[in-house]
């Protein structure tokens, strides 16, 4: 079945295209928009984007495969990215990943049997001072311990969306902002 965007999203595509001198430049944001609607970049999405932006399907495919944030298979309901790069690793990222694998019953790259969580390894997510950290869908959860992570996952499984401010210590705590505060 051919992929279509909602009328509201079609308007956003027009606005995106208007931001650039070429139509192709809208490719990355339009792919994000489509992925948001269906959860992944399906072959139908690729055909849609190619037609809409006047690109060859192979060109769109080339873009999709270059970047890590486009899912080429349908993921679980939520995606958990655990940062495994050095700063986080020094603060316990491996322990966090092992706990996730144990709790979700799957390895990185796989989805839990209940379809709720896809687990992925991430490279540095620009939260290095606040590790270990994970990104779940749109939120960063920082300064994690195993207990904190469990509590977050419980809430997310119940349909809540904890905000990233809840685990961030820098927006509120004086200690880690800047000198003089």
């Amino acid at each position, binding site marked *: 079945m051919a992929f279509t965007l909602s009328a509201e999203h079609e308007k956003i595509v027009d606005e995106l295209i208007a931001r650039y001198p070429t139509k192709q430049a809208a490719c990355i944001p339009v792919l994000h928009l489509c992925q948001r609607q269906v959860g992944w970049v399906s072959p139908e999405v690729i055909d849609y984007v190619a037609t809409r932006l006047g690109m060859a399907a192979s060109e769109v495919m080339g873009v999709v495969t270059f970047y*890590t944030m486009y899912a080429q298979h349908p993921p679980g309901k939520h995606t958990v990215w655990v940062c495994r790069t*050095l700063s986080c690793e*020094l603060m316990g990222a491996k322990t966090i990943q092992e706990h996730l694998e144990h709790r979700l019953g799957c390895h990185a790259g796989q989805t839990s049997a209940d379809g709720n969580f896809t687990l992925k390894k991430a490279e540095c997510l620009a939260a290095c001072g606040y590790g270990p950290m994970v990104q779940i869908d749109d939120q960063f959860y920082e300064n994690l*311990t195993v207990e904190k992570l469990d509590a977050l996952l419980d809430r997310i499984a119940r349909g809540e969306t904890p905000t990233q401010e809840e685990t961030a210590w820098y927006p509120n705590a004086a200690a880690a902002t*800047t000198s003089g505060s």
Partner: protein
Amino acid sequence: MPSYQNILSNRYTLARSWTLEVAERAGAYQQARKALTSMTPDQIKAEVKAANIRGRGGAGFPAGMKWGFLAPKKEGQEVYLVINADEGEPGTFKDRTIMEKDPHRLIEGCIIAMYAIGAHKCWIYVRCELVLSIARLEAAIREAHARGFLGARPFGKEHALDIHVHPGAGAYICGEETSLLNSLEGKRGEPRLKPPFPAVKGAFGMPTIVNNVETISAVPDVVAMGGEAWSNISLLPPEMKDGGTRLYGISGHVKRPGVYEAPVGITMRELIYDFGGGMLHPDRKLKGVIPGGSSTPVLREQDKVEAKDPKHPLNKWHGKSHLDLPMAVDTYRGIGTMLGTCCAIVMDTSVSMVEASRNLMKFYAHESCGQCTPCREGTGWLANVLDQIAAGKGKPSDVDLLVDISNNMMGNTICALADGTAMPMLAFVRKFRKEFLEAAEKGLPQSARLDEAIRSQLVRREAA
């Protein structure tokens, strides 16, 4: 904690600092108004030049000079400003604080910079993982439009200004400026051969200035104080041409990791012990510190500055520990490392340097775009050899193999990712050779996992 004045980050602690209402009450957009209503583009460029802002994205190139390289605008041509907000260098997490806490400072900097270089359009390329940064920037742009700070006649000036956020899609290499431009154009993020440099042929074939978030966010203060005064905030003598104040990041084994503002030229010792609160564990000393993002060679306390010749630019610090040398673009180059993004990763004596380098080499192997053979093969080989060593399947000659592979990667590639992989690898081996040899002979003990020292706390911390 030392008390330097917060200039760039002076609005961070205000409640709802990211809104126009709060930012404007605290001074935002006064400099854009001043620049657009009372200064010529050349005057602004002169102030930026006098400010001696070294690019905050990692390479440390003087922003004033870069703006000067811009090809003169030809009939029918546009000039573009592109902001590099890809922030992907491991260890680096400073630009995010500007976008989340004071997006209006970046927008104000863009307005002044666009006017100065003759641009009407600017794209801010933000990695898509930074959802909050993107949301705050987009909201800030909408607010600025609504107030008439952007649009057809900003501050009443006949110089249309338009800013858009462009999301990335998850690729470290897109932080490299020419790769970023390809990504902006909707292509795979593969770096381009230079020359031509972006200032001559950049986004969509037009002359383009690419600057880091923090570089452009400094511009309003430069206009406010005057370039020379802003430059003089730096603790270094003016002839070193490395001016102003900047954001320092610190992560790893310290008590107070975070992002802190201080003048250019504080020492690594100050960053670790004063700002960072010292080593996390009272019984474990500093083993090594990666000074400015993972592509910069590691430093040790016991290494001394060698600059006996009185004419040597670092002579003043001859014999001092590397930790006591002011942190600046050229001082760090002088000791064989780089200042990079000025975000340090601190490692205590519990850390296996074989494991630390293996973690980073896996990163580079994953992130190499694959265009150049020495980089594609070299990054993969380094990771493989380190895997073998860690698994106890290594041999002593593997240590020299790491050096050979690194040497073959340097200077032979389209972009600096290969050098940024090889240089830190060489420093790890040079400074911790014994450790690498031992691991090559015996493998790594189980306890060499990098989070061994912290594991018990991760489970206990909450209970306490």
